[in-house]
């Protein structure tokens, strides 16, 4: 069973990518990508189901491995990819209709989208920490051309920065991986599978603490760069701002979680080996730093996608902060927040994409009176804004509340208060811009066709999910979250 699931999860995106790279027509590209990502999502759900029954799945050679944590993340990431694929059709067809992209670009887009999904799944299912690294670097390479998709000066600059900064970061992470391997080789010898996460967890107590601490610093910087933790976040506003909206959405909803997942795996390992104080301190500092640094950029932002990028920096900070609190409740909050953040980022980037199509601009000053021009998009965008700033009754309210509770019960009063104040300030900024965009004067603008029906259904579904997770979390999901939190507790 495990073999079938693993091969489906990795094989479907891989095959779809090849088919897309070779296929001629738009229809083929769309149907292949839709079925591919849909089936992958389905497999991820089955995987989650299996993991609930069997605690973990492992391939016979122990190369692939899935427990509640990887299954949860796989479901989030593949779901995000599915949503992105569905949104891409409408978004790109609008470009095709306007004649701004060629057939070749379209083919490249769908092929790379599938490769992107493949690399993310590879990270999530690898038991081998070396492959965790390889997959993470591969996500950068897969998305390089997607960020540079529009082939303008700005997008090239963004893509160059993105690839260079992330590659450097990830190179530092490799040094961390090498050190981890070193610490395990000195115990078990190089003939044993010393780089497998399962093996490392067994010998964790025997690993050299000094080496592991040093390794963790490099890992944190490396995967932190990829996740967009401050101060390594500088590529993020550029890349998210210049990439096509669906890609920005998938990067904020999927890729960020994948990077955080890698970080979490190492955190769990280091926590088990040397206690959680070391990682906690680092994560709380970097987490809070990211939250605080995002605030002024959100308050003084003109570009809607860069605004969302800084919001992503903030939320990555929140998740890192929660992981740093290192209590079961905090882990639960972190995982829940990863889920909610993914959904809300997809919703926001997609509606921002719609706004861009309607107004031909990403500058917020130029987007006014959206409720009159594109009422549906404006509505879901507002819902997204309320959700992302942590208002009830949406999912992020629940997860942030969980994290705050965990922060106070863990005794981290000052950091938690700083966290609350920053989140409140961000709320003010967001509402200010959003209300101007939604309710400003729409003079001189006609009401426009508000995206395709499929896009509308998709956005409505995402908004509904946010509301649903705010009101009640389905029992199987809750069990999965609890199990994943248990994995994180070691």
């Amino acid at each position, binding site marked *: 069973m495990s073999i079938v699931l693993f091969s489906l999860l990795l094989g479907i995106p891989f095959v779809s990518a090849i088919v897309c790279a070779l296929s001629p027509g738009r229809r083929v590209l769309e149907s292949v990508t839709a079925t591919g990502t849909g089936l992958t999502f389905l497999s991820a759900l089955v995987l989650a189901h299996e993991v609930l029954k069997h605690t973990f799945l492992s391939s016979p050679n122990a190369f692939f491995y899935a427990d509640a944590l990887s299954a949860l993340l796989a479901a989030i990431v593949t779901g995000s990819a599915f949503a992105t694929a569905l949104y891409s059709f409408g978004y790109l067809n609008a470009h095709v209709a306007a004649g701004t992209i060629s057939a070749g670009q379209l083919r490249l887009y769908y092929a790379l989208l599938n490769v992107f999904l493949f690399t993310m799944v590879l990270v999530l299912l690898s038991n081998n920490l*070396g492959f965790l690294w*390889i997959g993470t670097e591969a996500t950068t390479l897969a998305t390089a051309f997607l960020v540079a998709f529009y082939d303008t000066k700005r997008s090239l*600059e963004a893509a160059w920065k993105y*690839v260079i900064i992330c*590659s450097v970061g990830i190179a530092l992470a*490799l040094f961390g991986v090498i050190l981890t391997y070193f610490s395990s080789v000195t115990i078990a010898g190089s003939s044993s599978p010393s780089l497998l996460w399962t093996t490392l967890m067994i010998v964790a107590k025997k690993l050299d603490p*000094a*080496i592991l601490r040093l390794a963790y610093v490099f890992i944190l910087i490396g995967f932190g760069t990829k996740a967009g933790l401050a101060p390594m976040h500088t590529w993020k506003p550029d890349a998210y701002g210049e990439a096509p909206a669906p890609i920005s959405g998938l990067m904020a909803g999927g890729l960020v979680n994948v990077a955080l997942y890698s970080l979490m795996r190492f955190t769990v390992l280091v926590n088990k080996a040397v206690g959680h104080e070391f990682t906690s301190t680092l994560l709380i500092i970097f987490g809070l730093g990211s939250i605080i640094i995002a605030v002024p*950029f959100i308050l003084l932002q003109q570009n809607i996608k*860069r605004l969302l990028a800084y919001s992503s920096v903030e939320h990555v900070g929140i998740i890192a902060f929660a992981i740093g609190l290192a209590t079961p409740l905090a882990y639960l909050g972190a995982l829940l927040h990863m889920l909610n953040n993914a959904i809300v980022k997809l919703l926001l980037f997609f509606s921002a994409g719609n706004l861009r199509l309607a107004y031909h601009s990403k500058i917020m000053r130029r987007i006014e009176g959206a409720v009159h021009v594109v009422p549906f998009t404006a509505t879901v965008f507002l819902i997204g804004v309320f959700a992302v700033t942590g208002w009830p009754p949406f999912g992020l309210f629940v997860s942030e509340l969980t994290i705050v509770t965990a922060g106070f019960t863990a005794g981290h009063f000052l950091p938690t208060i700083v966290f609350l104040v920053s989140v409140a300030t961000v709320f003010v900024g967001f509402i200010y811009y959003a209300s101007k965009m939604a309710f400003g004067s729409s003079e001189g603008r006609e009401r426009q066709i508000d995206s395709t029906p499929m896009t509308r259904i998709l956005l409505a579904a995402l908004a509904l999910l946010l509301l649903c997770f705010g009101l009640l979390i389905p029992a199987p999901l809750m069990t999965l979250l609890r199990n994943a939190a248990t994995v994180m507790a070691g």
Partner: protein
Amino acid sequence: MPIIDQQTLVRSVDILATGILVTAFLIISSKSLTFYVRLFAFQSILLGMLSLVIAVRYGETHILTAAVLTFVVKAFTIPLLLNKVIDRIRVRKEVDFSINITVSLIICGAIVILSNSVAQPILQVQRAGSLFTTKVLPISIAVMLIGLFVMISRKKAVTQIIGLLTMENGLFLSGLSITHGMPLIVEVGIFFDILVAALILGLFVFRINKSFETIDIAAMRSLRH
């Protein structure tokens, strides 16, 4: 049964590692783009020879594979690719600096000293002495950091690629020195990633040159806030 005697082995590893460090310094002190690429190729050859020596000494096939991959990918394919890029874009083939050579050299000298002290705690670990290559670790960290420094202080897009690749060489050397390389499949994956990264970055250089009419990354400053 060792094929090479220990004395010669240790010496040759030391000398090859020193050679790698010296090429990193030569990269810092050179001004022409083609020379950058040639030095990187030479550095990779030295790295390949070093892994070859270790592979032969311990009879480990996975290091042998890594050595062959180093020759093929880093010493041959990537330099070829980069040379093609440099030829085609017809830019002024000189490196632009934000920190001049003399100061750069001094900074890199300091980097080596720093690397030595960074590496000490790792070398202190018990059993670390069981591999004779561990003392090369400070050199590998220094090569890594010098690569990073090249990326920061040199402004042409191609030089940033070379910096990144130099970093990778340092990483590979560090892996060789303390663990005798990662497991084979991981090593192969890493090589694949590096090759693809070089390819993509090379393509980007083309496109940047077309759009900006320069490959000076200081010209890329349209994105702010």
